């Protein structure tokens, strides 16, 4: 029984023991904040005091890159830091804070510039940010995608939230409805995290898909080879698919995996806040777990995981993996019209465009990624 998602609930659900914490000094993880979203160290300390009992953890961020404003803490920033440091416990954590030094700078672009300018960076980055893919120019989308390739080539794992509007919806110039993918979630060179909730809201129970969990198919980026078999399988066996005119079935499909995204407790401005939800919550949770796996790999003298998706799809494509809890129930939101009646895609056995491969079963995922 629980009264909302806390670090203890997440660690129980994903099978982390008290010993599953960072131990290697070169392990590192980061989250990025834009638009003057700040966190307060005091909130983090209070959060860990309230919810961090039972597992070794850190109570402060090691490095802030950029400017931390003096104003109130932002709920998003507090959420990111508190949960990244709860699953990625005891791992050195950085916060990139790029509100834009100048009024004319684009904060997200500034973050990309920082990645291209710093030789020593955390291995794992959690970013809960997104825009409608159709609102961005193709030149911009393609170039940002190359920036993710650069990061992948350097061994960085970059995780993006899949968004909180399900499949999304927009009206075309012909007046028809189509789903609306989100970017960078739709980039083939990042790992995209969807959302789930407990089937029984106050029990650590099996998970169902969260109806807000962003997912779908890119209209810009073609489907990468690493996911072709998994997506083809979904499209051929899914019992109920939206009409094909609503989405581009040959595009990059997302999310890649998921975690709980509902009913979180967050401490912000010294006040514990319940019922915080969104894939902004699931993304730092998964990022922290990836940082823990990196920690074990680095301790064994092995390289970090880097860009996760090829390994992830290969592992899960074998069919007998227990590294993820397969989420098979629930559908996400989409267009409110007579054809789809607000329903986008539905979760299904194996990969699906609501929860990806499902949610992590940490010991098995660790074993697979060390093997």
């Amino acid at each position, binding site marked *: 029984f629980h009264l909302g998602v806390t670090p203890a609930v997440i660690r129980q659900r994903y099978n982390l023991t008290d010993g599953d914490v960072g131990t290697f000094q070169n392990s590192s993880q980061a989250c990025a904040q*834009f*638009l*003057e979203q700040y966190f307060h160290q005091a909130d983090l300390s209070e959060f860990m005091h309230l919810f961090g009992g039972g597992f070794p953890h850190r109570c402060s961020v090691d490095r802030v890159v950029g400017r931390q404003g003096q104003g109130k803490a932002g*709920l*998003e920033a507090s*959420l990111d830091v508190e949960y990244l440091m709860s699953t990625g416990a005891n791992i050195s954590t950085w916060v990139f804070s790029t*509100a*834009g030094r*100048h*009024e*004319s*700078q*684009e*904060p*997200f*672009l500034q973050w*990309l*510039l920082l990645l*291209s*300018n710093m*030789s020593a960076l955390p291995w794992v980055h959690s970013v809960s*940010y*997104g*825009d409608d893919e*159709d609102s*961005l*120019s193709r*030149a*911009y989308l*393609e*170039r940002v995608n*190359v920036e993710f*390739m*650069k990061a*992948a*080539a*350097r061994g960085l794992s970059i995780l993006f939230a899949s968004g*909180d509007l399900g499949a999304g919806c927009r009206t075309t110039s012909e007046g028809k409805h189509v789903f609306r993918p989100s970017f960078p979630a739709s980039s083939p*060179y990042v790992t995209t995290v969807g959302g789930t909730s407990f*089937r029984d*809201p106050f029990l650590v129970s099996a998970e*169902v898909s969260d109806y*807000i969990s962003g997912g779908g198919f890119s209209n810009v980026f073609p489907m990468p080879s*690493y996911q072709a078999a998994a997506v083809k399988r979904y499209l051929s066996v899914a019992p109920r698919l939206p009409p094909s005119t609503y989405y581009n079935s040959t595009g990059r499909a997302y999310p890649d995996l998921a975690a709980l995204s*509902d*009913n979180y407790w967050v401490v912000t401005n010294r006040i514990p806040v*319940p*019922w*915080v*939800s*969104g894939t902004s*919550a699931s993304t730092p949770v998964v990022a922290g777990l990836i940082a823990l796996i990196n920690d074990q790999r680095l301790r064994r003298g*092995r*390289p*970090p995981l*880097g860009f996760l*998706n*090829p*390994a992830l799809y*290969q592992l899960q494509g074998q069919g007998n993996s227990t590294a993820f809890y397969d989420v098979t129930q629930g559908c996400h939101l989409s267009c409110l019209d007579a054809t789809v009646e607000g329903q986008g895609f539905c979760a299904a056995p194996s990969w699906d465009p609501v929860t990806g491969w499902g949610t992590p079963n940490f010991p098995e995922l660790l074993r697979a990624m060390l093997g």
Partner: protein
Amino acid sequence: GWAPEPDQLFRTPAGWSDAGRLAPSETLSLTFALRQRNVQRLARLVQQVSSPDSAKYGQFLSLADVQALVAPSPLTLGTVQKWLDRHGVWDCRAVSTMDFLQCQLPAGTAERLLPGAQFHRYRNGTLSSVRSPSPYTLSEELQEHVDFVGGLHRFPAERKVVSRAWASGRMWPRRATRST
């Protein structure tokens, strides 16, 4: 001129309002995304270092390696530099990989450099951004050398953590049935 981003939407997000055009002397910052080399090679390399069945799995590149691979050609760097010099833009800084150039310049110069652009200040409470509601163009000579210019159209994206119980007045979001 040539428009690198003809399909980039300009929309003022909710909460932001136009506070007027910038004076020509006000300084702004533009980010030039310079055309990279070897992007296809980079894509192949990413596949190799990220695929467990590849002999190169885990053999990641350093920042210097990435720079050597993707840094723009001397022709690109020279063409952009000459173009900026012609307009009196001196205060520029490149990132380590040389493929982004960030320049500080007066708004008047920026509007001459990027015909079509018109810089306005937008406010949202205490936040302030400078953007151009009209599309920009670049000199034809840059078509092979610049991907896009940052700092004109895209507003800082807001992300919103959902707080469903508060927003909807319901405490049991998952149990609610969908209305037909």
